């Protein structure tokens, strides 16, 4: 990706880096790694809309209100107290977890976290400044989201307080979800959480990446997650983005799947002023199966951009992708979904569907489903629809006694049901569905002009 910004507006971050690094006090190896990433960031600059991949998402407003660079200090006690309240309010709604780890502004917060006693199933091997040297880097670290490829991965690598490493042990089956909470505690901060997940052979787990912020906090979150699934590993990964509607979140999640592994990623974008999900999965070995579910619900002036890339790198791999969007008020939704089939990757089965509902005159959506196919023995399809609620269905419901707003609400809920129903674990499904319905009620206004 070539950078497109003229006169780097992120200059201040680069200048603030030495102070950040000094405060953090990393070992020389990590320090060098950060510096390389910072150099890559300087070279790439923030992407502009002249880049095809950023055609529909303008970071112009971000450039005008750039938060200062992180200080490198862990959050103070006062913030911790506030965060506790926040977590009690929000994170607990997602329910019981076999492990909960809370990161405040990217810093691990042990007092709010509960780690499992038995490490055979879930191991936390994070690399933080206080970790002993030399640091054992997890296998594959940085391969899927290298700093040199895009500016935000570079930014993340330079400024992340630590690399959170999570491993699901070989053959383990974890019944309760693992709940990782990433909270932006302040206002006007740059937060760079970094996560590395490995599902060992035949492991089976559910992971929630829960992004929260204090109400009204205006922050930039640049998160990077790399997921590696070994042979026959299965992972359900739920990404819940429910930060304040002043947050800018650039979320990069990249995964590589081994032989006969199964990965399901559910991305729910509810909050944020501007959210960009950069989601890429490489189906790297025979028999890998991938399910991508996505839901974006925008109201007010929210801008929600989902960029997915499914890379069928080997034969006999399967992917299914379904993204749905509901845009109300002046919200804008963007979907770009690429299915890539490499040469000789035969016997591929891949479907992709993107459906959008526009609820008000100011709402808009840009969608770009894409197929790039370099092998012939494939079955690939994509479909995309954009429209309003079905008038025939509205009439049907009204003829059974429902008011127009009840009918609209019911149809809108019906529209998202397919995504919510696919969520893992009943308790989680119930909890997340509730979050979605709350957000929907903010979109479907009673009387809803221009909807019926």
């Amino acid at each position, binding site marked *: 990706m070539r950078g497109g910004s003229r006169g780097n507006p992120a200059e201040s971050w680069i200048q603030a880096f030495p102070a950040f690094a000094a405060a953090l006090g990393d070992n020389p190896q990590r320090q060098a790694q950060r510096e390389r990433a910072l150099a890559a960031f300087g070279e790439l600059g923030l992407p502009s809309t002249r880049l095809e991949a950023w055609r529909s998402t303008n970071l112009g407003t971000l450039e005008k209100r750039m938060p200062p660079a992180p200080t490198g200090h862990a959050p103070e006690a006062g913030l911790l107290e506030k965060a506790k309240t926040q977590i009690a309010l929000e994170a607990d709604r997602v329910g019981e977890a076999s492990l909960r780890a809370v990161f405040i502004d990217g810093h691990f917060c042990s007092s709010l976290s509960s780690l499992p006693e038995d490490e055979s199933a879930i191991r936390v091997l994070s690399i933080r400044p206080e970790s002993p040297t030399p640091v054992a880097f997890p296998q594959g670290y940085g391969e899927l989201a290298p700093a040199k490829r895009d500016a935000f991965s570079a930014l993340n690598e330079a400024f992340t307080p630590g690399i959170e490493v999570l491993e699901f042990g070989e053959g383990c089956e974890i019944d309760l979800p693992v709940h990782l909470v990433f909270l932006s505690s302040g206002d006007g901060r740059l937060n760079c959480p970094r996560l590395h997940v490995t599902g060992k052979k035949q492991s089976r787990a559910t992971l929630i990446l829960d992004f929260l912020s204090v109400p009204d906090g205006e922050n930039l979150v640049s998160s990077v997650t790399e997921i590696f699934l070994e042979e026959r590993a299965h992972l359900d990964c739920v990404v819940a983005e429910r930060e304040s509607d002043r947050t800018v979140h650039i979320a990069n999640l990249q995964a590589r799947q081994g032989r006969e592994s199964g990965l399901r990623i559910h991305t729910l974008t509810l909050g944020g002023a501007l959210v960009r999900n950069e989601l890429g999965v490489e189906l790297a070995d025979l028999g890998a199966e991938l399910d991508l579910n996505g839901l974006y619900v925008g109201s007010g002036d929210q801008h929600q951009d989902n960029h997915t890339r499914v890379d069928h790198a080997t034969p006999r791999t399967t992917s299914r992708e379904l993204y749905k969007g509901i845009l109300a008020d002046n919200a804008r939704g963007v979907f770009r979904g690429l299915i890539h089939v490499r040469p000789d990757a035969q016997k591929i089965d891949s479907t992709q569907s993107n459906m959008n509902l*526009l609820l008000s*005159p100011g709402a808009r*959506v840009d969608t770009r489903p894409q*197929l790039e*196919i370099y092998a*012939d023995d*494939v*079955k690939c399809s994509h*479909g995309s*629809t954009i429209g309003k609620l079905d008038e025939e269905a509205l009439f049907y419901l009204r003829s059974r006694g429902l008011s127009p707003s009840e009918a609209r609400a019911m149809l809108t809920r019906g529209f998202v049901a397919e995504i919510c129903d696919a969520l893992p674990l009943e308790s989680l499904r119930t909890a997340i569905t509730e979050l979605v319905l709350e957000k929907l009620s903010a979109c479907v206004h009673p009387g809803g002009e221009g909807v019926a």
Partner: protein
Amino acid sequence: MTSENADLKRMAEEDYKYGFVSDIEADQLPPGLSEEVVRLISAKKEEPEWLLAYRLKALARFSEMLAENGEPGWANIDYPAINYQDISYYSAPKAQVVLDSLDEVDPELLRTYEKLGISLEEQKRLTGVKVAVDAVFDSVSVATTFRAELEKQGIIFCSFSEAVKNHPDLIRKYLGSVVPYSDNLFACLNAAVFSDGSFAYIPKGVRCPMELSTYFRINSSGTGQFERTLLVADEGASVSYLEGCTAPMRDENQLHAAVVELVALDDASIKYSTVQNWYPGDKNGVGGIYNFVTKRGACRGKRSKISWTQVETGSAITWKYPSCILQGDDSVGEFYSVAMTNNMQQADTGTKMIHIGRNTKSTIISKGISCGRSQQSYRGLVKINPKAEGARNYSQCDSLLLGDECGAHTFPYLEVENPSATVEHEATTSKIGEEQIFYCLQRGLSEEDAVSIIVNGFCKEVLRELPMEFAVEAQNLLSISLEGSVG
């Protein structure tokens, strides 16, 4: 199957049917692009001052664009940068033609068209299905048939150069009004150096009684072809227009950068059909035409309709997006396309449907067939502007892969800014069905015939949009282009 494959391979290596070179003395400018060349072209055509000024403006913009950004980089095609100084921008058969009198046409030229299956002589005698033909040889229009008959109804159908002389007001009014000279690099080049092309005007309320047709032929070596077509259908008028193209086999790449502008006023309809069979280069990708064409129609009037149908089998590289600007309320845009690529061909083609007026409707049906080592992309934009209340679009893009070394890619862009719009897009990519082929073989068909009928079936939705006499030609072309691709 192997022996059949060998047969097919042999057939594939047969010559491109239209690859002959006609030995006609040509009046050709030396290679090079400059203000002087543009002035020379304009002078040869005895053009008015305003047209020269237009050309020069375009040339200046072209140089700027080339210096700033080079050639458009976004398409999924790959070729070495073109040296615009190596191309000759004007080539005309020396024996000049007095139009409407075929007797004076160079007999070699007439024979060329006979070989192409377009007998200009025949045209005079044909009864029943009538097609008025404007033949463009290299850069110059050589003959337009049936003119007198059309004139009775007030229809103007002539070469572009003649139109400049005889209908300057119409040309001045509409030239560049749909594709501005600065639209893109190739349109800009065309505006600077276009040599000829066709012009048609259908007056108010007239339904053109016959198909209008232009046949393009690049003959001379080292030349480019830069023709310009302008069709205007006045209120309530309707016309069907056909376009065909061929070129000799040469191991050089020749540039074809045409511009087509269509204007439909209230209740007018234009159907524009193309069978593009420029020389595609040999099986190793040597030679062939670079077909970099800008085609756009403006549905200016209420209830107007523009329909593009294209069958693209030729050219080394195709870069082409026939588009509709749906300005008038209730106007309709359609795009039906079959693109087949074989060997080393590359095609990046599709359409743009820009919905501006209320209750505008568009339909896109695109069928791509990739064989050999070719790469093909569908690229299309559907844009619903905020004011386009009640707009609807339906798009369907299917790709068929024959062979494991080719690629098929689909890049639709859907941008919707009005909540009352309904936009639907569907696409599939798959290989040709083994079961289907087996079924045909079991019923006694050869593999080649089996593939051919399956491909024709795959394209049926598009082929049936073609006028009769073109549909047959298109089916034959598909079969020829398929040869050697089974396996």
